[in-house]
């Protein structure tokens, strides 16, 4: 378990959108983040230094640039998620990987996964 700080969050977490968000939802989320972290905003008053604010805003802009472009978004998804080992492991029990959501499993879900493994061991590819 690792608690992520802002610099470690992926682009979806940064913009507070889900991985299957539409381009319009991503645009709206970006507009809100821009208003939140712009210089004149009072939302971050007393919590963020000017340096932290600029850093997070840069990351948010980079996130938006990547996710608004479908080609860049797909490449990012492959790099960040689909190439990871645990993504492939979870995909065994799903009909299609397109519907798979990567998120931290709850304890109950991990327990259920262990039980499933006892009865339905994954096929080796």
């Amino acid at each position, binding site marked *: 378990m*690792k608690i992520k700080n802002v610099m470690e969050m992926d682009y979806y977490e940064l913009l*507070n959108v889900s991985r299957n968000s539409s381009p319009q939802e991503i645009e709206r989320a970006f507009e809100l983040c821009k208003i939140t972290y712009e210089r004149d905003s*009072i*939302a*971050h008053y007393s*919590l*963020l230094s000017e340096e*932290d604010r600029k850093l997070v805003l840069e990351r948010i802009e980079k996130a938006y640039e990547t996710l608004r472009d479908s080609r860049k978004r797909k490449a990012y998804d492959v790099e960040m998620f689909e190439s990871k080992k645990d993504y492939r492991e979870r995909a065994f029990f799903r009909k299609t990987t397109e519907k798979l959501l990567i998120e931290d499993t709850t304890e109950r879900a991990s327990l259920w996964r262990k039980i499933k493994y006892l009865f339905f061991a994954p096929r080796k590819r």
Partner: protein
Amino acid sequence: MYQVNTESKGSLLSLRQGKEKTIWAVGGGKGGTGKSFVSASMAIHLASLEKDVTLIDADLGGPNLHTFLGMKDSNLDLGDFVTNKVPNLKDTVILTPFVGLKLIKGTENVLFMANMNYYKKMKLIRHIKTFDAKRVIIDIGTGASYNCIDFFLLSNPGILVVNPEPTSIENAYYFLKSCIIRILKVVTEFYGIEDLVNKIAVHIKDNSKSIYTFLNEIISHDKNSAHILFRALKRFNPCLIINNARSERDFLLGQSIVDVVKKYLVVDLNFLGAIPHDEKIHTSLKRLTPYLSTYPNSEVALSIRSIVEKLAYK
């Protein structure tokens, strides 16, 4: 003429049978943000729906809820319970002009109530928890003292009332950080992991922006303890109301604050809505008439109704 409520035994029995009681505590740190107005208005509307709401004025330094409800007479109040003049909190309950709404007034006669000691505070908290009402709304008042924070953490959920001003936001963040530290302290004492936490506690005291650093260092030392602390924090889900919103940007401020708090304080805040500014609130207060009764169709009234229904029936 108002009477002390003498509820039947039936409602106590229903509590024992597991009838759910909700406690909403309204706070926020800064004074003058409209906590008392919001508490009173929410209670009035909720009572019109549920018929069993008790409003408690736990603003120990400056109780005003009776004024917002248009009640001037003196009655038994919280001070009488805290000073043991009456044995039970329910003995201080008074009826209000609103059907289904009861009030426990803040004290007018006991001075220095704000300096209530630990034992009196715990006695009050015990009685609130077992109080015989389906819905309890507590106005905890101003500041981030231990008393305010413990009343806030007693609730499910707590409600922060913030104005779209830097001072109010600053105090709200200070209040939230104080709540986080209080939760961590209570949890570490309960689970006996104080020694580990004390070694790393200097991070929290010196620089409360480094909650991530603090939790990640705990993880590196003891994953189980970190898991306990993280789950305790994740169960802390206060709500947020923006009061006195004047511009479109003020109405969006709530979502911005939710995002900032999630990213930097590891807390999931739930934005309930924004209440627009209205000069008629002050006019009603001066006339000692409840705003919601006088202007039931105003935008403020509609916002409050929407917030209450969102919270009560989500």
